């Protein structure tokens, strides 16, 4: 079936819904989502959304911008960070005005709390900047935006999976999608397409990410020749639930929780004397890994899956129930631990992609190192790289990113489509996608995806994790290539058209394999340590050679690397200490 819209938005998390709210007021808009919209992973974000409201103590957007740049180890594009932090303030008020139930101060204003790497006066000490709704801030943002979409009659196509992008030179003309309930392939012809498909943490074994976080947007773009930016920078959140990787919010430390090793020592005193447990995530995750390797983990065997304790017992039941109720519930459900009574066993968990589809501050996708705009193609949220997170994102800045840049992209699309021509619908545009799906379902027997997925996740976790070496990353590239070869003979077991979730998972696995390859190759290429990319063979940051963004292109089975400059127009890069 062929559809025609001015605007097609792929993904219905925070970025997609905010863009939809803006674009739908100005153009005929469709939102395509592989999940029901309120199931998106924005809903799992816990701790808060930062904005320098100054409701609790003095704060300035400029301090927030500086923290964002320094937190990103100076790989942040600084003008983008300035926009992010200045527009943060109105963005949070807008969410409140649209109904978001923030926690309140005694004066009835939006309450704020501490979060990692957020400081006053350019690093002098922690500041209360994170606006929050208990430990369900992402859930509340997703609900509020979905509610607004209902109010504004936004058109949703629920459970539609994107499989290809229609490109004509440097112009995007729509997307190809498969409708899960029927198996039918649809062509959505559009003047503008926005990808807001979220992250791809499912390439790793231990992750806080949902099953749905398979990087569908970036993978589809990469296969259509668009380079992906800074893919080597993947954030490991310091505190995931032991064994499962479920997120334990940084808000636990923001409220006063303390990390301890097997000796009961507050080891962050040695790694970050000023910010302690509230140092940025890359630093805390490395510190935990270093403790574990030194035999200071709780088991003390030095193995990669040893863990440390997050102690929140001194916070008391009242704080835990009023400010961290979901965390308390997760610990009781999955660990049998009451955080009011006992410390929480935690270890780092793959959490957030700093890299993704390159965009400018309007959400327009940039197709090369020279700044060439791909007409009609946009990206926002975790799948995009603006870049406001650089080499390491600060906590709370992801919710902010998707609200600010989802909105900006939606507004820009609204203007763009006024002057753009509606592409001629072309039934042939789906030919390649049809052939691929037909092959996957041709009834021959092939390896099942489950084993390939398992091996991919293990390889990425062990060889492209927190600490990296050339030898391991080269092995990862080779192993992922071998898995991609095996993937070519994978076949769908389910022969039905209706809700063929087997087909869906095999499509998703293909996306993860492509993104794993690009991530491993980009990491192998960058010969320095910066933010979340920590190389044991190149332990120092090297601004002379590596103060630049990576642009990695997938050309068949090879990854080719190009670069583009970092915007350092506001602050000169300096050594980073906390």
């Amino acid at each position, binding site marked *: 079936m062929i559809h025609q819209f001015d605007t097609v938005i792929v993904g219905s998390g925070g970025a997609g819904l905010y863009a939809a709210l803006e674009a739908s007021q100005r153009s005929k808009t469709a939102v395509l989502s592989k999940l029901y919209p309120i*199931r998106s992973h924005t809903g799992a974000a816990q701790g808060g959304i930062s904005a320098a409201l100054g409701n609790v103590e003095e704060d300035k957007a400029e301090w927030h911008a500086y923290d964002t740049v320094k937190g990103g180890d100076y790989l942040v594009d600084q003008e983008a960070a300035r926009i992010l932090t200045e527009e943060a303030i109105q963005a949070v008020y807008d969410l409140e005005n649209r109904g978001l139930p923030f926690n309140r101060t005694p004066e009835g204003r939006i309450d704020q709390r501490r979060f990692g790497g957020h400081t006053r006066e350019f690093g002098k000490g922690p500041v209360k900047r994170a606006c929050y709704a208990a430990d369900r801030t992402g859930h509340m943002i997703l609900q509020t935006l979905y509610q607004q979409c209902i*109010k504004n009659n936004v058109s949703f196509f629920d459970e539609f999976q994107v499989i290809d992008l229609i490109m004509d030179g440097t112009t995007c003309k729509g997307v190809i999608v498969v409708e899960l309930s029927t198996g039918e392939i649809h062509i959505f012809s559009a003047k503008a397409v926005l990808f807001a498909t979220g992250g791809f943490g499912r390439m790793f074994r231990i992750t806080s990410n949902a099953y749905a976080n398979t990087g569908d947007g970036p993978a589809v773009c990469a296969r259509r020749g668009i380079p992906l930016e800074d893919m080597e920078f993947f954030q490991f959140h310091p505190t995931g639930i032991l064994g499962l990787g479920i997120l334990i919010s940084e808000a636990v430390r923001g409220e006063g929780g303390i990390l301890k090793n097997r000796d009961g020592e507050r080891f962050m005193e040695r790694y970050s004397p000023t910010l302690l447990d509230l140092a940025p995530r890359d630093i805390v995750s490395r510190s935990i890994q270093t403790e574990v390797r030194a035999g200071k983990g709780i088991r003390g065997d030095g193995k990669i899956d040893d863990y440390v304790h997050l102690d929140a017992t001194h916070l008391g039941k009242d704080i835990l129930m009023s400010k961290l109720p979901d965390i308390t519930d997760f610990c009781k459900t999955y660990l049998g631990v009451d955080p009011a009574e006992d410390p929480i066993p935690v270890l780092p968990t793959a959490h957030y992609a700093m890299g993704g589809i390159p965009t400018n501050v309007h959400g327009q996708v940039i197709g090369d190192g020279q700044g060439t705009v791909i007409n009609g193609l946009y990206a926002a949220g975790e799948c995009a790289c603006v870049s406001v997170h650089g080499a390491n994102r600060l906590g709370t800045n992801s919710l902010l990113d998707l609200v600010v840049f989802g909105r900006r992209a939606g507004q820009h699309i609204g203007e763009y489509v006024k002057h753009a021509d509606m592409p001629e619908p072309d039934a042939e545009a789906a030919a390649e996608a049809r052939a691929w799906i037909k092959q996957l379902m041709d009834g021959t027997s092939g390896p099942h995806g489950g084993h390939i997925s398992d091996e991919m996740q293990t390889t990425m976790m062990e060889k492209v994790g927190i600490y990296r070496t050339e030898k391991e990353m080269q092995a990862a590239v080779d192993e992922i290539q071998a898995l991609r070869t095996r993937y070519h003979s994978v076949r769908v077991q389910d022969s039905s058209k209706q809700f063929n979730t087997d087909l869906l998972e095999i499509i998703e696995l293909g996306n993860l394999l492509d993104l794993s390859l690009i991530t491993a190759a980009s990491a192998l290429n960058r010969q320095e340590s910066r933010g979340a990319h920590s190389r044991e063979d190149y332990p120092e940051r090297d601004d002379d050679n590596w103060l630049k963004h990576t642009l990695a292109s997938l050309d068949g089975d090879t990854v080719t690397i190009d670069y583009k400059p970092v915007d350092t127009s506001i602050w000169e890069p300096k050594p980073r200490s906390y």
Partner: protein
Amino acid sequence: MKIILNIQRYNPATDKEPYFQEYHVEVNPNERLLDALMDVKRFQDGSLGFRKSCAHGVCGSDAMRINGKDGLACKTLVKEVAENDGDIITVEPLKNLPVQRDLIVNQGEFFEKYRSIKPYLINDEQVVEKERLQSQDERMVFDDTTNCILCASCYSACPVLEEQPMFLGPAAIAQAFRFLADSRDKGEDERLVVLDTPDGVWPCQNHFKCTQACPRSILITKRINQTKRMIEDDSKKDGTLS
């Protein structure tokens, strides 16, 4: 431990009626039921249909009936529903909604009813301050209802819906309460029109099945009763005026 999953299968396109299929799975008792289902899906039978996403009880995708109780597969640990090797866990799709494939139900009417109560802040007044002021106490009045993830466990558990399929259902009423009780909201008149009807709040008979099923610990039945009282208070107010 070794468990047996006894799963209801049904593909409306090819099957005349639903049937059960058994799968033997080796699991750790501390694992989630969802982990066991994923094991079947990935290594035994790719054709098994179910929804899932966050895997820790916040997205609402994997609501189903587990040993006859409604809940989330990712918030149910194996040890809660099986004690010994060889124990059988029966897994079925949610009730009161049409089955599309195996454990996947069509949630269309559930969301239609949710939309009908206007689940968004209604207040056209200009905001004087930057934010609308609200005390923490005012916020706490409707706090638990904001936890709702629209998983439809309550909708499946509700015995009234079995008899009266047009009933609004627990989730939609609890979400109506979420806004009616919000000090910032002005949409009472618009919502009460939907709620004060034969298929609105009144069919609820306090079975408390919704409250028991809710994986987010929302006191749904209590919120429904509070909503009924709001309607009664509103009509009394109208009565004295006329």
